[in-house]
């Protein structure tokens, strides 16, 4: 154990995802030895992100204003919505430049083990967006693992009566993983080769 504030910092860092006690200690000592200007910039960035960043009122993506950059862009195709689990998936798909529609961020995937059901995801908001008939295609880009597949199947069934074209990214994505880990080329191809989901 270290002196009060140092230990506090280690404890806080240790709470971050993917940071174990050893790494937390290493980061803490890195910060202790770093240039005060750099540290102040880091602290500022942390504060700003909590103060400024919100979630887009339309799609749930991270946004710096009421709506996110994609939703504010008038050139985006209003007829297509791509459904993803997390904001970071939006970033991954944007990198491919394959997709010109808008997004819908669910905030996770259905997983009873973790107590996540449809009501815990932004599914009701999605249904509201689909209600007026503007959207004609829904691309389900949830992760290529069991929970992602289950969520996609659930959504496809839910949307079936609406007469939408519902598609799923082509296989070829690394199975069992996260969407964000797929490289641009693979992800781009998965978009091009998306198939109609038959449920």
């Amino acid at each position, binding site marked *: 154990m270290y002196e009060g504030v140092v230990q506090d910092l280690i404890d806080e860092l240790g709470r971050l995802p993917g940071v174990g006690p050893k790494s937390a200690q290493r980061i803490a000592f890195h910060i202790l030895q770093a240039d005060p200007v750099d540290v102040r910039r880091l602290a500022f960035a942390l504060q700003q992100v909590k103060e400024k960043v919100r979630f887009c009122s339309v799609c749930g993506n991270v946004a710096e204003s009421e709506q996110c950059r994609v939703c504010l862009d008038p050139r985006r195709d209003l007829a297509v919505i791509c459904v993803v689990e997390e904001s970071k998936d939006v970033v991954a798909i944007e990198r491919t430049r394959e997709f010109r529609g808008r997004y819908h961020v669910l905030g996770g995937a259905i997983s009873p*083990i973790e107590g996540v059901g449809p*009501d815990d995801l932004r599914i009701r908001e999605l249904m509201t967006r689909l209600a007026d008939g503007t959207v004609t295609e829904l691309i389900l880009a949830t992760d290529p693992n069991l929970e992602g597949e289950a969520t996609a199947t659930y959504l496809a069934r839910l949307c079936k009566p609406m007469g939408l074209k519902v598609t799923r990214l082509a296989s070829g994505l690394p199975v069992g993983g996260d969407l964000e880990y797929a490289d641009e080329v693979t992800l781009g191809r998965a978009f091009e080769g998306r198939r109609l989901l038959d449920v």
Partner: protein
Amino acid sequence: MHVAHLSLADFRSYARVEVPLDPGVTAFVGPNGQGKTNLVEAIGYLATLGSHRVASDAPLVRLGAERAVVRASVVGQGGRTTLVELEITPGKANRARLNRSDNVRPRDVLGVLRTVLFAPEDLTLVKGDPGERRRFLDELLTARAPRLAGVRSDYERVLKQRNALLKTAATARRHGGGKAADLATLEVWDGHLARTGAELTAFRIQLVAALQPLVAEAYRQLAPDAGETVLEYRHSFEGELPSSREQAEQQLLDALQAARPQEVARGLTLVGPHRDELLLRLGPLPAKGYASHGESWSYALALRLASYELLRSEGGEPVLILDDVFAELDARRRDRLAELVAGGEQVLVTAAVAEDVPKALTGARYAVSDGAVTRLTP
């Protein structure tokens, strides 16, 4: 295939041990508790990523040590040597290495070394719960086709999710109310359970059909005057066995539909391959509950020998491991077993006394005593 060299570090009773091995028969002989089984257990672990004796990894790590390392050089088809290594740390994922490359998942190790291990614990194949026999089938499936490890783990994951959902629904019900949306996703899980479950079921049925004549033959060899063995795969629900994966999937969907009220009431998945049974019959009677001790023993051995024959006939001859087997057999069955296995590419035998190893099994002998493994002959 055969193991040309085995190294252990902090595995079971061994701090460190290096054992060079030859093809053919090798017998490890030594008094009780000296570490004979520990050696062959390590080899089995490399092949299956599990111990035949314990379900958790903690007992595999030497008392006081943090992790165990098992390493073997395996000579496969065409004489190609692969160095395979597993680092076992209880409570953590194993770390695997192939030919000194770090960049492998433990699952990638499956198939490099294939073993068939027979040990006294195998009596539970006949006398134990259905789960023992399901595990027997599934492990053999994975040895035949390592990619089926993925099918198994997919099924287990779906099952866990579905059970979690049913449990929440059941609890909510008992306390009145409950979210309708919970059950709205049940059909989605049904679909996934039926798909992966059908795959597993179809592979198991195929396997049982392939094993059936081999088990019967092995049992005849071991116990010529006894009854005929029959293996029968049984569903967890009424109905005929499917003849295709599609049919299996439809059957499962129907069965889930029918079982729905009980499942929701009990908060548990009641149909599927995790509840199927491999029935072992001897003549007209089930072996479990009816067969004598000796008959059960021969039956269990026949199951393993049949597995060995099956894998052997499909190429990539596995290493056969017989742990403490001969002491349990009478002289005649001992000699028969020796005849059956003498031609194997590599057969590893353990015995407490040298006299237990049949004369017909000529080959290398090692003395195992007090953590040392010493070659005696030739």
